């Protein structure tokens, strides 16, 4: 039981510290333009990595499953200029149907 509470408190503190670090260190100061340029490109880099790891990653393995088809359908819908919510709904629906019938 103690192990559990140590883990809970440790994770909560670590998580809060990680989230606080960037805003405290970077915030409010003028940054050199080169740093601004790198920070501006963090969004596409992070988004890509999140898509890849949440679509193909499974506990340290690369897998190709219903998620990839669902996200693929969303990408296709977006390429055809579908609204974001429709694309996301299609992804969930496709994935759910594949899992139900295969």
């Amino acid at each position, binding site marked *: 039981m103690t192990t559990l509470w140590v*883990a809970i408190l440790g994770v909560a503190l*670590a998580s809060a510290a990680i*989230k606080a670090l960037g805003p405290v260190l970077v*915030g409010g100061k003028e940054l050199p333009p080169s740093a601004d340029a790198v920070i501006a490109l963090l969004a*596409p880099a992070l*988004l890509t990595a999140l898509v890849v790891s949440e679509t193909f990653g499974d506990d340290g393995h690369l897998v190709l499953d219903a998620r990839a088809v669902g996200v693929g359908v969303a*990408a296709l819908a977006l390429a055809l200029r579908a609204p974001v919510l429709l694309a996301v709904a299609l*992804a*969930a629906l496709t994935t*759910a149907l594949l899992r139900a019938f295969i």
Partner: protein
Amino acid sequence: MSVGKKYGGVYLAGARAALPFALATFVLGISFGVLARSLGWGIVAPIVFSVIAFSGSAQFAVVAVLGAGGGALAAIVAAILLNSRFLPMGVAVAPFLKGGPLRRALEGQAVVDASWALASRGGGRFDREFMIGATLPQVAAWISGTVIGVLSSDVVGNVERLGLDVIFPAFFMALLVDELRDGWRTIAVALIAAVLSLVLVPWVPPGVPVIAACAAALLGLKRRSS
């Protein structure tokens, strides 16, 4: 930009935009509660955990590590690795937060994947009020889901059967498509990040590939030719 009323509207718009994620988060919260209860965590500990940590990925990691017989330190390390992505996300939003160090540290707590992404306005800009507004319903959904999960431990909320787990990558994909319209440099960054994370997933602990992929943003150091 001066009146509070306008900010109120932006907070509300953020909260509304986050509702689909709040739904998914709610179902995830139920699964977390059910899972934690099945490991003998009782009722109080899982709920306290969701209130003070509010981090789905980290909490599921703790369940996995402790459930497999691991110790507290291993669980904390796993959670840190998973949540390390909030460091670059926090750096990215930092210029748009307000106040002194303490207030900024507090506002930084509003950074969660979906809110951060929803508040991204392209070209490195972020909407602070929209992000905070988007986080509130997700916090509420996560905590209430956990409560329902621990109290109804035999009703398994099945996120996967409903396909809700792909809401997140599909949504990140939508934002990415928007970002990619910025031009070739952004596309190059995305390609490098994709390769880095694909290559790393099988070799390093979960969470690390996302952090490593941030290295792609160093392409920003290369001077724009225009």
